[in-house]
């Protein structure tokens, strides 16, 4: 599912992955000193709209992925309301014996929305970037040594196998324990076989990579060359516009 989205010929998918990564970092940095409600709310809504509009991701799928983050964001709000640092003056209503103040709701919502902005930008990156392209871009644009770039790709390949193997080990242990699940303290038992097989696989893969002539040096050619193009320029303009709108719009609204 994710692979299909990553390969779609849409705008966000065609932007250079390194540039996209920088944009994510900028967004996170910019949001840190913001404490009002409107800025993160606008940015969040606009980000979601661009993931759907410019990335071609189905809204249902996106919502599903955002669900855990929404719960996480709501927990911020809840914490602020139930255990406030300072009780606000404007009491809106009461939940049982708890007075709920407007000031606390605003701080909580702002913190929660900030978390959602981080989440939505991370999703924007993950859903629209092919891992292979990301790795190539890191090597070609950010001068990451190929040794690490291709090593990361090899490790990435192992992840699904790792998940399957964990399921296998758990089942095996359940049968041997006659149906009893293990206590969390014994979890290390799961990891010994997983580590053993991971080390063995890593060794074999390393040898196989070298046997194909890989020496880890920068001295190699590339079939796919990632360069800066007009998409990247457009993306830069898009990000700047997004920031200007989200920071100016709330001001304008308040002045009115």
């Amino acid at each position, binding site marked *: 599912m994710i*692979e299909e989205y990553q390969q779609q010929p849409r705008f966000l998918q065609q932007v250079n992955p390194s540039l996209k990564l920088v944009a994510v970092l900028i967004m996170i940095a910019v949001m840190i000193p913001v404490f009002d409600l409107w800025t993160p709310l606008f940015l969040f809504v606009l980000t979601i709209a661009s993931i759907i509009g410019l990335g071609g991701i189905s809204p249902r799928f996106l919502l599903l992925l955002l669900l855990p983050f929404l719960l996480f964001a709501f927990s911020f709000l809840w914490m602020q309301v139930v255990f406030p640092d300072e009780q606000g003056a404007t009491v809106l209503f009461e939940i049982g014996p708890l007075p709920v103040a407007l000031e606390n709701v605003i701080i909580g919502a702002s913190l929660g929305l900030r978390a959602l902005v981080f989440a939505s930008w991370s999703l924007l990156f993950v859903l629209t970037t092919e*891992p*292979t392209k990301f790795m190539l871009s890191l090597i070609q644009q950010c001068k990451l040594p190929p040794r690490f770039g*291709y*090593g990361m*790709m*090899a490790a*990435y*390949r192992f992840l*699904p*196998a790792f998940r399957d*193997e964990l399921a*296998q*080990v758990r*089942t*095996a*242990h*359940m*049968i*041997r*324990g*006659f*149906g*009893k699940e293990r206590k969390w303290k014994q979890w290390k*038992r799961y990891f*010994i*076989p997983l580590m*053993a*097989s991971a080390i063995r*696989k890593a060794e*074999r*893969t*390393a*040898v*196989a*990579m*070298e*046997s*194909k*002539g*890989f*020496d880890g040096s920068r*001295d*190699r*050619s*590339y*079939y*796919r060359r990632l360069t800066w193009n007009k998409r990247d320029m457009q993306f830069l303009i898009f990000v700047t516009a997004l920031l200007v709108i989200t920071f100016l719009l709330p001001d304008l609204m308040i002045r009115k």
Partner: protein
Amino acid sequence: MSIIEATDVSITFGLQKRPSLRHVTFFITKGETVLLLGPSGCGKSTLAHALQGLIPRSVEADVTGTLSVKGEHPATWTPREAIQHVGILFQDPETQFCMLTVEDEILFGLENLGLSREEMEERLERSLAYTGLVDRRHEALNKLSGGLKQKAAIACLLALDPDIFVLDEPTANLDPKSSDDILRLFADIARDPSKTVIFIEHQLDPVLPVIDRVIALSEKEGILAEGSPREIFTNDAVSLQQEGIWLPQVCMKALELEKAGKITWPTLPLSLKEWQAACEKQAIVLSPSTETETVPSVRTDAPIMEAESVCFSYKNQTVLEDVYFSIASGEFTVLVGANGAGKSTLAKVIAGIHSPTHGVLRRNGEDQQRMSRAELFQRTGYVFQQPEHQFVTDTVEEELSYGWKITDTPAAEWQQDVENKLDEFRLQEKRMENPFSLSQGQKRRLSVASMLSPQQDVLILDEPTFGQDEASTVALMKQVKQLHDEGQTIVMITHDMELVARYAEKVLLVEEGTITYEGPIAPFFNDRDRLEKAALKAPLSWELERWERAMNKKNASTLTCT
């Protein structure tokens, strides 16, 4: 002129006292196709790594003697030089790749060589076409079957265009159809006079027709025998077998029948084709009357397991649909079928790991879903494909007593049983060692031993011989056979039709989530259409036995005539 010259080569790893490859001397000529034989542990794989210089370049080891390839020492090559001389195809298809798609993986090697884009494009397309992977160019490697993965690995090698190919048991873990495909590809490459191909294989029969020369390494040191396949298997059969080297099945059976006086061969047959031609010359022919000689024994014991319309879905996907079968107590049943047909899932449903979403599974007449998991697992042993997955303790001994200890049985009751298992499974010397430090074969034996418990009446094995060498396969199957003889009901998933022919009493063929054949072995192997459809093949030994029956028949008739 020799392309490879090895003079008194020995290779010793790290702290080991005994060299892994011991004083080997041989020469290989350009364009030759060589089969390298040897008992397990004689250093065949080590030699393969050394020919490319991977030893000692990236795997540290002490190499003595002189090894030269194309007049140079492989150890002095850079990785980039090495691949232009020697390409290796490894055994495990999972760990040969570092990229996500077929195309990217092929390009990875070409980029390592620093080729131009045009050159890469050309080589990429050529190798995809050669291996028949053009349509799968953009497919993800981890979605491919084992056979296709090996094909992709071959495409990578072909694109790199080395002069020497070393094939380190590339078909060891493949089903019969895929391994035929792979070997056929290499037979084509072997015919190219500019390419030198070195096979390290344990399935000898399919490769023999393309082999020019066989080199057999000795278990002690040096070369045991060398020569053309016919020479070596005619003259050195006895000494090869004494060293634990397997002969091609056709040769083995031919020699066996000759010894028994059933036939005299003008020349030793190396393939079924030659066998057939020789037989026909002596007026021995296959006829339908030789097929029905063995009457399948029908088990009359009460069924221990019955499935009635069993369905199973996982994450909204139907994996099993409308499965019916009945297994008699004490029966040896095999589950066969293509990858992804649902064999493993069926085994897990039988074991009670998964519960059927519909239908009834009965165990000794009782509905399995009404039984508690604990009870079900005590009565069912389940041996996993990877032995390591099921180890739960730090020593071999504890591993065997684990089941007793968690059911709080007093030690006096089980100590003798543990001792017996240590003896039976030849693990007595290793009793205090960590299960993870054992050899491959020992791990396999321990994993079976630890799954046995006295209340148990069914033992399920999920491809227990996967990744095992011939010797440990034989040792394992001997143990399973013994359990079966003692009355244990066995259900085994396997791709190996030889094992089916030799041990099983009943076959369940799984196709697309349902059982399409349930019954004895003989009619299963005789129905070629069904086998073809399921991408299976009757094993060579089955064919050879038909011929043996034909010989018996002919000998009997000549006796009555005279």
